[in-house]
């Protein structure tokens, strides 16, 4: 069975990617299961979707714990534990990353037993939440890597899944997706199917004898204040609002009041501070600031500047 996981951010089309690939497998005569996995998150938050494909009916369900292929649409997710990109990967896994950096850099950085391949990220992309066509590109690359989905089958699957969006959008998706398919041809077949887990020799689950605990411990209550601080929703951000303090009029209230997440605090000197651990990058402040003292830059660019700053 092929077990394939797509990781990206809400809005990048990972569900669509899984559906295109699922349909392509299905058209190729495979039994298929595809599903997205999400909770109450929103655009920019890490999400994933998965595809299982086999010649016999797929009985396995739920999250893929040992993937044969992991496709990462957004390379900023790789090192983010909450995104779970690296979960369950081993020497049989192919890890395909959409990135500006090369495979050896990632292989070194991650020190992973998996085979790392790169889907070269497009240079013209600014807001990574809008990585254009990245879902289609990821699906196409994955299709090529399996070595069992012909180019025209993939094209047919994409048309089937995106047809309702109109011919123009389908054509644009096809152009970039098929380019990704062709770029991956040299690695065609590098993703291989893995077998059912054997019952002959398995690791027994480390079940515990479940303890009784008093209600002071076992009631689902939170006694600590402000635990939402622990949830770094700043990780969802794709665009970063940056305050130009020379332009800031020190009005005391506009940006901080409009911020829907309470992530802007006004200092004693009347100037605002943005809490980047929790700012989700909605950019309401950018729109509201009367003297236009807040500008938006891409998170990618912001992080590059930070790294450069730290190195000097």
């Amino acid at each position, binding site marked *: 069975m092929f077990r394939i996981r797509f990781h990206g951010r809400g809005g990048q089309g990972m569900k669509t990617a899984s559906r295109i690939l699922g349909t392509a497998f299905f058209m190729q005569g495979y039994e*298929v299961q595809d599903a997205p996995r999400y909770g109450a998150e929103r655009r920019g938050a890490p999400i994933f979707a998965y595809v299982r494909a086999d010649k016999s009916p797929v*009985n396995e369900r739920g999250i893929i714990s040992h993937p044969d292929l992991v496709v990462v649409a957004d390379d900023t997710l790789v090192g983010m534990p909450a995104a779970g990109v690296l979960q369950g990967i081993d020497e049989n896994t192919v890890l395909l990353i959409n990135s500006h950096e090369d495979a050896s850099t990632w292989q070194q950085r991650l020190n992973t037993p998996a085979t790392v391949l790169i889907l070269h990220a497009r240079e013209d992309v600014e807001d990574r939440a809008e990585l254009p066509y990245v879902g289609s590109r990821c699906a196409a690359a994955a299709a090529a890597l399996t070595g069992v989905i012909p180019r025209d089958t993939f094209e047919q699957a994409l048309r089937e899944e995106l047809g309702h969006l109109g011919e123009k959008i389908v054509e644009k998706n096809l152009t970039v997706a098929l380019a990704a398919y062709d770029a991956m041809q040299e690695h065609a077949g590098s993703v291989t199917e893995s077998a059912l887990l054997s*019952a002959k020799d398995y690791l027994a689950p480390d*079940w515990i004898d479940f303890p009784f605990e008093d209600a002071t411990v076992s009631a*689902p209550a939170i006694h600590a204040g402000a635990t939402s601080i622990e949830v770094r929703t700043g990780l969802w951000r794709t665009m970063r609002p940056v305050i130009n303090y020379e332009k800031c009029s020190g009005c005391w209230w506009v940006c901080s009041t409009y911020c829907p997440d309470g992530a802007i605090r006004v200092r004693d000197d009347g100037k605002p501070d943005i809490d980047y651990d929790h700012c989700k990058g909605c950019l309401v402040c950018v729109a509201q600031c009367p003297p236009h003292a807040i500008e938006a830059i891409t998170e990618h660019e912001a992080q590059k500047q930070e790294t450069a700053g730290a190195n000097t």
Partner: protein
Amino acid sequence: MTRKLLTGNGAAAWGARLARADYIPAFPITPQTEIIEALSLWVDNNEMDARMVTLESEHSMITAAGSAASSGVRVFTATSSQGLLYAMEMLYTVAGWRVPFVLVNVSRGLAAPITLESDHNDIMAARDSGFLQIHSATCQEVCDSILMAYRLAEHQHVRMPAIVNLDGFYLSFTREPVALPDPEQAAKFVGEYDPENLQFRGKAPLSQAMAVLGGGPYSYFRYEAHLAVQQALEVYEQIASEFNEIFGRRYDMIDSYQMEDAEYVIVMFGSFATKARDAVDSLRAAGWKVGLARIRLFRPLPAEQIRALLTGRRAVAVIDQNISMGMGGVLHSEITSTLYGVKNAPPVVASYIGGLGGRDISQQEFFQMIEEIKTASDKGTSLPTRLLYTQNEMTEMRKLQAIAHVEHEEINQK
């Protein structure tokens, strides 16, 4: 027959469409909403000739469903979890009215604490309401079961509402190949709804709000409803055979897999049963005589069939994705009561609680359950109820408790 990829929710919507439901009272709730979204689109595009009405709550939605069914039209509706519970008063009420319709429940764990993910406590809460219950394990089965459920519910000996259950996420948002029944054949199979004397009109009054005191009349009505639900066992066989003849898919009350020579048996319901199938295959490959009995029809409970399937086996593991506080797994207690006093009943019927709130059940866990019941059966011992819960899960739980500032010292002592 051509197949297409559909989610469990998509398959449920198709079931309603193919059954030619006339009236759809609706209220959204995760993970069910896709069903009514699909239906509303079809109704809007005139692809489905039905009247769809959004109500202000599930309580009203079920009231509307029961009332519409009383007027002689075919009704479909859907909900999940908290919605089902909010409607609970009316579930019992409309079942008492003896009106047939089909309700799809997309299973989701109950608050508190709140979750979006699947388990069966919501549907178990409706267990004693009078609704028939069919539990599906695949997207194909969701669609097919809705057609069968109309036949069962509308049968003149039954005339009770029916619930078709599917698991949230594991089926609701998961696409699988589904062979959609041909619309003409589906319509022929389900047939015209014959409402008999349920034809409420302005000129034909019908009161369903009667009060009965003294217990005698009440007992009559309640026990008749119970007998009516049991009638579904009689008519099920014929409906299942007819379905198989037309569509080539056979659905028994209990879906048996590798049961013929099985010494060790897994009993459960819902979509996780397909995972158990894989486990049975792996265990068989390793030389174990293992089988799977998936309960599809839960109300009425096919007690005879359960007895026939389980007597003579060495040990049984019942997996419940639900928990009755202070008792344990609901299915386990029903299976054991079914087997009580039966000659050659399996000496070990172990209870496992797992998959609560969407918690996965791994292949290793299925293997280990079989290992445990075999050991107990060899030694002639019994097994205490076990929650499938690992050390690693407890460690993660402790981290959450530390953040929540529960009594630190108590946790640290453990």
